[in-house]
C-alpha cells in the first residue's frame, strides 16, 4: 500500500547523443537518447533522467530538442538536469516536456535560486543534485563529505549533508545524492553517506553512483533511498531495468 521504490536510468547527453564515462571523464558514445529512453520505458523504468553534460549553449539547445522528442514518446516522468542556472532555464525545460528539473552548481553559487524555482513552479519540479565525495587532504567538513562541482573535479569545502538539508528547506522537492567516489566504479552505492543524508532530509532521496549489481539497488533502498539511479549498467546492458526490479521485488521491496 505504499509508494514503490523507483528505478531510474540516467542518460548523460551531450550534443544530442548519450555519453557515459567512468568518474566523469573518458566519455564513450552510447547511442540516441530518444531511442534509449523508449527502451527503458518498455523495460519498466519508473522515471527517466537526462543529464546534459554539453559544454556550450548551442549544445544545450540540442538537448531541448531531445527532451521535446522524448516527451512525445515516453509516458513516464522525465527529469532533466545539467547547466540549469535560472528560472528561465527551468521554464524552457518544462515547456519542452520535462516534468522535473535538476539543479546543481548554480544553487551552490546562489542558494536563493532554489526558492525562486519552487515559488514559481512548485517544489515538486525541483530536484537538487548533490555531487558529494569523502573529504581528503586538508579539507574537513562536519560530516566528512563535501560538495563538488564540475563533475566532481572541484571541491567546495561545503558540507554535503548540511547542503542537502538546506536545499530541501529552501524548496527542493527531491534530493539526488550522487557519490563522486563511487560513480562509475560499479562497486555499489555509498551507503554510509546515504544513511547520513536520509537522517536529515524528509523529501524523497535518490541514490546515485556506483551501481553494479541488482543487490546494490536493494541495499540502497534498505538504506532509505526512495529511488535508485544508474547509468552505465543500463546503457551497456550489464543489467536490465527488469532484472533490477525482479531482484528488489524478490527481496520484499515494493516495486511497480
Amino acid at each position, binding site marked *: 500500500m505504499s509508494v514503490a521504490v523507483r528505478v531510474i536510468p540516467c542518460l548523460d547527453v551531450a550534443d544530442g547523443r548519450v555519453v557515459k564515462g567512468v568518474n566523469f571523464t573518458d566519455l564513450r558514445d552510447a547511442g540516441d537518447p530518444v531511442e534509449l529512453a523508449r527502451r527503458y520505458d518498455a523495460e519498466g523504468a519508473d522515471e527517466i533522467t537526462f543529464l546534459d553534460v554539453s559544454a556550450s549553449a548551442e549544445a544545450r539547445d540540442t538537448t531541448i530538442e531531445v527532451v521535446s522528442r522524448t516527451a512525445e514518446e515516453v*509516458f513516464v516522468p522525465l527529469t532533466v538536469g545539467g547547466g540549469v542556472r535560472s528560472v528561465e532555464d527551468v521554464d524552457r525545460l518544462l*515547456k519542452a516536456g520535462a516534468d522535473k528539473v535538476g539543479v546543481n552548481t548554480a544553487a551552490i553559487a546562489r542558494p536563493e535560486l532554489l526558492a525562486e524555482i519552487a515559488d514559481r513552479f512548485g517544489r*515538486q519540479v525541483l530536484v537538487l543534485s548533490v555531487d558529494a565525495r569523502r573529504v581528503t587532504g586538508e579539507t574537513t567538513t562536519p560530516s566528512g563529505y563535501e560538495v563538488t562541482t564540475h563533475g566532481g573535479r572541484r571541491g567546495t569545502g561545503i558540507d554535503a549533508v548540511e547542503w542537502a538539508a538546506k536545499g530541501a528547506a529552501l524548496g527542493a522537492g527531491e534530493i539526488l545524492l550522487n557519490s563522486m567516489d563511487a560513480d562509475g566504479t560499479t562497486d555499489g552505492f555509498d551507503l554510509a553517506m546515504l544513511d547520513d543524508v536520509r537522517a536529515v532530509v524528509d523529501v524523497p532521496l535518490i541514490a546515485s553512483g556506483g551501481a553494479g549489481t541488482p543487490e546494490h539497488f536493494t541495499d540502497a533502498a534498505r538504506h532509505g533511498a526512495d529511488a535508485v539511479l544508474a547509468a552505465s549498467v543500463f546503457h551497456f546492458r550489464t543489467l536490465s531495468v527488469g532484472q533490477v526490479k525482479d531482484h528488489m521485488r524478490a527481496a520484499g521491496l515494493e516495486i511497480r
Partner: protein
Amino acid sequence: MSTTNVVVLDYGSGNVRSAVRALERVGANVELTADPDAVLAADGLVVPGVGAFAAVMSGLRSVRGDMLVERRLAGGRPVLGICVGLQVMFTAGIENNADAPVPGLDQWPGDVVRLDAPVVPHMGWSTVEPPAGTVLFDGIEDERFYFVHSYAVRSDPAAAMAGDPALTPPLVTWAEHGSPFVAAVENGVLAATQFHPEKSGDAGAQLLRNWVTAL
C-alpha cells in the same frame, strides 16, 4: 467513426504537453486552448493542474475557467481534473496558509490539506483502491499510478454528501501515503485524479482511454 473532441484547458499551468500527447495516444482529437466556444463545445474538458493551489485557482479564473467548468457541468458535459485539477474541485485549499484558505470550485465538500507522512512530497508509483462500479479504473484496478504532490483531500466527500438526498454521492478511489487520501473521484460527468494518468505509462493510458470512450 466519429472522433472524440477533447479540450485541455490552457491557462498557463506547467507541463500540459504530455497530457495532450497522452490523450492523442488513446485516439482523441485534442486541442490545447482557453477559447470559451471550444471549451464549451468539446466532448470532454481536461483541467490540468501543476503548482500551488492558489496559483492554479488564479490561473483558472484568469481564463474564466471557473465559469466554464460550471456551465459544462450544468449542461451535463464531462470534465476531468488532473492533480491540482482534482484539488480545485473541492471546497478550499489550505496550502501554504492555514489561516487563509483559498476557495476552490466547491463541486465536492472537503479541504485540501498537507499529507501526513515521513517523506513528502509523495512522489512515485502507488497502488489505489477503486470502488465497485468504477468506470475510470475498469480493467486496471490493480495497477500503480504516478503521484507527485504534497497536499491532498483526506476527508471522505462521499460521506459528506451522503446526508443530502438531493445529491448523488461520488465514487471515491483511495490511496495511502502516511494515511489514506483521495486518489480519484467519479461523480457523473465530473471526474478527477490526484495522480498523473498522462505520466502513468500503459495503466494511465488505459484510464484516459476509459474516460474518452465514455464521452
